Each structure stands twice: as structure tokens, then as C-alpha cells.
């Protein structure tokens, strides 16, 4: 295959795909009303789940099984990243030795910001049923604090044992809450095993805040484990 055809093939493919996109784009008119599924969620969410944020109600309760699958996929990713990188782990004594010191600004900034970031992460996942946000976003924010700590001190080591303990106990509690829903309420992951509370307050919407806190811990632990696996291989030689 010569050079010009090699260059032409992607362009032709993209041109075809682009014309498909153009047809979709030109023929698109936004809906005037919600479709049946969406209007069911819009009108029934408050009665059935007590959550202010409809997206949260869909993720945690209506499609809760999918979310369980999603955190499982994340867990698998973290496990595979750890497995793939395990062979090239740096020896403990040498790790991080080749780095320049990270500087006063980053070190002091980290010391100041990490508690605030962790607090903000917890705020985001505890308020998932009231405001935009939730377990996944909060977990990502928590993991960004870990990233900041790793940036300021690359030789720092986090206990893998602690991370995996947090991760697995959060996952186990999540499944147990789901099973309790089968016993005491309408089905797997039904949030009505706790009282729905008064609409709009922090302790409302049944177990949604609890489940989102667990998801936040689990996602934060998984992201942190991915980050530390990636970081610990950095200086392997």
C-alpha cells in the first residue's frame, strides 16, 4: 500500500461518516414534549423516591442494577490496571528517588487544599439527591485530592490494603442494601427501606444518600487505586 492511499482511506471513511452525521444533523428537530419514559420519571420520581434530582433517582433507584454493573466495570478496570502494571513495580527503596523536590508552592498548596477537596467531595456525594452531583462526581473529586498528594510527593505510598478494604466493604454494603430492598420494599435496590423523609432535606429520599455515599467511597477508592498503580510504575527500571 503506498503512501497516498494510506492517507486517503481515513479521509474517505470520515467523509462517509460525516455525511451520515450531516443527514442526522439536518433532519433533527428537538422534541416538544418528553417521551413516555422521561415523563414517567418526571412525574413519579418525587412520589416514588423522594429525590429532588431526577437524574440521581434514575441512576440510583430506577436503573440501580446498571449502576451496580458500572461500579463493577470500574472495579475490573482498577484490578486489570493493577495486574498489567504489577510486573513493572518499582522496588520500594528506589521509588520516587529520581524526582526533583516538588517545590514549596506545591507542597504548601497541597497541605492547604487536600482537606478542602476531600470535604468538597464528601459534600458532592452526600447531596447527590438534592443538587447536581453524586457518587461518581464526588468520588472523582476525592481521587483528585489523592492525585494532588501524589504530585507533591511522588515517593509517597498509599496503603493498597486500606484502599481495597474501603472499596470492597463499600461494594459489599451496596449489595446488602440492595438485597434488603428485596426483603423490606418493592425489589432489588428499592430506596424505600428507610422513610422518604421531608422532600428537599438532606436526610430524605430513603437510602439514596447512603447508596451514593457508598458509591462515592467505592469510586474514590477505585480511582485512587488506578492512580497509585500508574504512579508506582513511573520510575521502574
Amino acid at each position, binding site marked *: 500500500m503506498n503512501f497516498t492511499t494510506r*492517507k486517503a482511506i481515513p479521509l474517505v*471513511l470520515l467523509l462517509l*461518516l460525516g455525511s451520515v452525521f450531516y443527514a442526522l444533523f439536518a433532519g433533527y428537530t428537538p422534541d416538544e414534549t418528553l417521551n413516555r419514559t422521561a415523563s414517567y420519571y418526571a412525574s413519579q420520581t*418525587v412520589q416514588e423516591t423522594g429525590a429532588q434530582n431526577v437524574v440521581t433517582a434514575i441512576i440510583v433507584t430506577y436503573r440501580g442494577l446498571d449502576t451496580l454493573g458500572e461500579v463493577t466495570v470500574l472495579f475490573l478496570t482498577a484490578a486489570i490496571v493493577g495486574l498489567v502494571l504489577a510486573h*513493572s513495580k518499582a522496588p520500594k527503596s528506589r521509588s520516587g528517588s529520581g524526582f526533583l523536590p516538588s517545590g514549596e508552592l506545591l507542597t504548601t498548596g497541597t497541605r492547604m487544599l487536600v482537606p478542602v477537596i476531600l470535604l468538597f467531595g464528601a459534600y458532592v456525594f452526600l447531596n447527590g439527591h438534592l*443538587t447536581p452531583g453524586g457518587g461518581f462526581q464526588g468520588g472523582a473529586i476525592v481521587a483528585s485530592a489523592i492525585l494532588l498528594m501524589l504530585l507533591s510527593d511522588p515517593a509517597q505510598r498509599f496503603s493498597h490494603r486500606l484502599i481495597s478494604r474501603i472499596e470492597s466493604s463499600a461494594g459489599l454494603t451496596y449489595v446488602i442494601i440492595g438485597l434488603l430492598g428485596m426483603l423490606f420494599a418493592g425489589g432489588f435496590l428499592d430506596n424505600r427501606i428507610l422513610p422518604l423523609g421531608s422532600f428537599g432535606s438532606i436526610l430524605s429520599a430513603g437510602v439514596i444518600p447512603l447508596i451514593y455515599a457508598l458509591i462515592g467511597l467505592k*469510586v474514590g477508592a477505585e480511582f485512587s487505586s488506578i492512580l497509585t498503580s500508574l504512579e508506582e510504575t513511573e520510575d521502574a527500571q
Partner: protein
Amino acid sequence: MSLVQLSLATGFLLILLGLYGALTNRDIIRMIVSFTIADTGVNVVLVAVGYLPGREAPILDTIPVAEAASRITDPVPQALVLTAIVIGLGVTALMLAYAYRLFRARGSLDISEFTELKW
């Protein structure tokens, strides 16, 4: 051009750009970045499809519950995109880990150095 059309066009362009980058770049890191750009494009398109002109975000703090069905945008695509973002992050992390292993194996990130699967 309305807001929906603008974001749809942006999303489609990002998908095309990402795929173009993934098909033409020889460097594995650049291919991974291209994939994440295409991923972002897909998410933008999905959210744009769920937007209904003149409506508000599906959070019922100021919107009365009785009027919810006529005042909020479609929450389902937003829930889907939340899932897609998280899975996209997992895929990116995996790709980076494999890229690292490939670099350790060959000392290079140029895709044309890896000829085992070529025919």
C-alpha cells in the same frame, strides 16, 4: 443556529476529529488522546439530544412537582452520559496501562513498530 444545533454540530465534529486523529497518528499516546476526544463528542451529542428548548435542568428544587413533566429536560440521556463518562475514564486508564506495557516491551510508542498483528 439554535443551542441544540450548535451543540450537536460540536459533538459530531469532535467525533470526526477524534476518529481522524486515531486513524492518522502513529503515536500511541496521541491515539489515546484522540479516542477521548471522540468519546467527549459522543457525550455532547447524547446530552444535546436530550435537551428540549426552553426547559430547565431535571432538578426539582424550584420547579413545582406537578409541573415537572412540562418544565424539565429529558433526564434519561443525562443519566446515560454519566455512565458513559465513567466507563470512558476506565477505558482510558486501561489504554494507558497497556501503552505503558508496550513501551516497556519495545522502548517505543510508535504503532508501526508493533508488526505482529499486521498482514
